[in-house]
């Protein structure tokens, strides 16, 4: 991570005799609270319909005064039965379901699920497809982090970054729409390839995006990183050490902010990520502020990867040359008997997978998204398991929030970057 020093301290009420700001100690644990002031504990129910819970999370909070003694999260308010539905669908039909799990990064979810299916079936995708999928993943990372920045800054009292972030999101939405026809539910990938190749204008527009997007990041950096209110509300809040982060199975920016340099793109590379030149930002303190810095820096790095991917985008087919997996083009299916039979069999019977199982993890914006398929030889999986990064990261919130103020709980909850569609599935 690029070194950034923070010079401003939290705004304080007045100056002392030497002209230094007076620091007001904030009681951070119940023990610091004056026992005279201690009364009975208060039980507060936050959610499931609350603008600061990022969806339908429900937190039951036990308070002593304003200090959080215990947080008991309740999830499942958006349980939609994805994994059960997956058992009734062909592998390609599962792709539209994945749009709707982590709906902040749909394209990256599409890539994750077909990587698992391809591993199960032993399919090698084409070089052009690999690069296009990298582009899809990194675009997803940017829009997901943009939502995170926008909503978190609203939670902590800054509205402007939300509008800036959503302007950039709209630009990526335009690109997604150009490529897939949909703003949000992209269903981009197919087993063995992609739904469609990118149009020519996409390349020029994405290049223009990569050149101008860092300006917005610089602007957000300028308005937040050294902002007294922002620093005061995020530093030393919700600290997790590296050992705790590993013990809680955290992944993604949450894990890296605690100082664990683990990124699947570097450590278990897929889609040829080992050939790209990018850095993995790692935090030191594991607090909300470091999580913000890690995510901000990841946006710069994703932008760098996008530029490299555009430079190297090879010509060639996007789909593997295997008529049992890839649908023949409509023109051939209508004129060629053999192509028509393949078309019919694939639509009616689906792509059959061999007996066995496969797990493929990818570095999603939220953390490690794992897709685990178990097949009994038919065209529908016996079991489709999503390893949900947001769900597992969220489980640590009780640990992080203990002893903080109620308003810090909002910052901590925001820093987890949850998306309830994926937490509850």
């Amino acid at each position, binding site marked *: 991570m690029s070194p950034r020093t923070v010079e401003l301290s939290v705004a304080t009420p007045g100056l002392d005799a030497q002209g230094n700001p007076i620091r007001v100690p904030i009681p951070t644990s119940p023990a610091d609270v004056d026992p005279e002031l201690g009364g009975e504990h208060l039980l507060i129910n936050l959610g499931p319909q609350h603008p600061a819970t990022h969806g339908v999370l429900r937190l039951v909070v036990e308070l002593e005064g304003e200090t959080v003694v215990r947080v008991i999260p309740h*999830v*499942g308010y958006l349980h939609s039965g994805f994994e*059960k539905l997956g058992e009734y669908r062909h592998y390609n039909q599962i792709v539209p379901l994945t749009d709707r799990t982590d709906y902040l990064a749909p394209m990256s979810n599409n890539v994750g699920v077909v990587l698992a299916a391809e591993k199960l079936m032993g399919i090698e995708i084409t070089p052009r497809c690999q690069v296009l999928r990298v582009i899809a993943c990194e675009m997803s990372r940017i829009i997901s982090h943009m939502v995170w920045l926008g909503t978190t800054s609203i939670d902590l009292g800054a509205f402007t970054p939300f509008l800036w972030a959503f302007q950039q999101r709209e630009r990526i939405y335009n690109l997604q729409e150009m490529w897939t026809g949909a703003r949000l539910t992209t269903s981009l990938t197919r087993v063995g390839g992609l739904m469609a190749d990118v149009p020519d204008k996409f390349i020029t527009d994405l290049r223009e995006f990569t050149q101008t997007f860092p300006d917005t990041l610089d602007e957000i950096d300028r308005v937040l990183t050294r902002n007294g209110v922002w620093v005061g509300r995020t530093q030393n809040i919700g600290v997790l050490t590296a050992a*705790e982060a590993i*013990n809680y199975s955290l992944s993604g920016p949450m894990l890296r902010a605690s100082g*664990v340099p683990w990124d699947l793109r570097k450590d278990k590379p897929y889609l040829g990520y080992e050939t790209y030149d990018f850095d993995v930002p790692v935090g030191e303190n594991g607090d909300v502020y470091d999580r913000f810095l890690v995510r901000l820096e990841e946006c710069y790095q994703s932008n760098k990867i996008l530029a490299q991917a555009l430079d190297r985008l090879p010509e060639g087919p996007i789909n593997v040359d295997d008529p049992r997996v890839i649908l023949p083009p409509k023109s051939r299916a209508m004129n060629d008997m053999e192509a028509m039979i393949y078309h019919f069999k694939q639509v009616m019977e689906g792509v059959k997978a061999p007996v066995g199982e496969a797990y493929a993890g990818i570095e999603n914006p939220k953390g*490690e998204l794992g897709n685990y398929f178990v097949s009994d030889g038919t065209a529908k999986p016996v079991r489709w398991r999503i390893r949900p990064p947001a769900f*597992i990261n969220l489980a640590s919130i009780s640990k992080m929030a203990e002893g903080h103020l109620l308003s810090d709980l909002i910052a901590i909850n925001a820093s987890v970057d949850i998306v309830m569609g994926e937490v509850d599935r």
Partner: protein
Amino acid sequence: MNPSAQALQATFGNAIGRVVDARGETIVYVSAAKVRDVLAWLKNTAAPGYDYLVDVTAVEYRDRERPLEVVWFLRSLASTQDLRIKVELDPRGELAVPSVVDLWAGANWLEREVYDMFGVTFTGHPDLRRILMWETYAEGYPLRKDFPLRGRFSRSEQVRQALNVNPEGHYSMEELAIAESYDELPAEMRDRLARGDRARIPNSE
């Protein structure tokens, strides 16, 4: 083949069943009685130590004769090696495996989810409650193969049960006991809580 598989066989002998190596992934079948020892050994003693728990889940096959499997995905961050541990359980017998929450805190919610979706009990879990479905959900375990896709009840019955869950059904026993609020509950409600009768549904038989 992951070298830890041989190390496991050497250490635990016949508690280790077959070892499958396919698609670059190593799966080790372990007997249910020994699985906790195996997981603890892998975390604390083995070289490399499997310090990171990726996931816990279960698999039930369409073939009713095949056992139900509980799966632990382990990873060693230092050596980037993955290992998958499986336990086979008879779906008609008692579904119980030991909990590993004291080894990995991250297993807490994952085990609750497996309990919620498959009905597998994790003995020694500190707070084994349903997590995704609500606590008084009466239709069963959704990811079991004998569970129909649209649930067991009619749609109107499902709507009725959902709309008529008693308010205290939304809180866990633990929460109701917080901050003396338990004592302030009406006597009738306290009585029902003590009996474990959490949320009666009005107009139900």
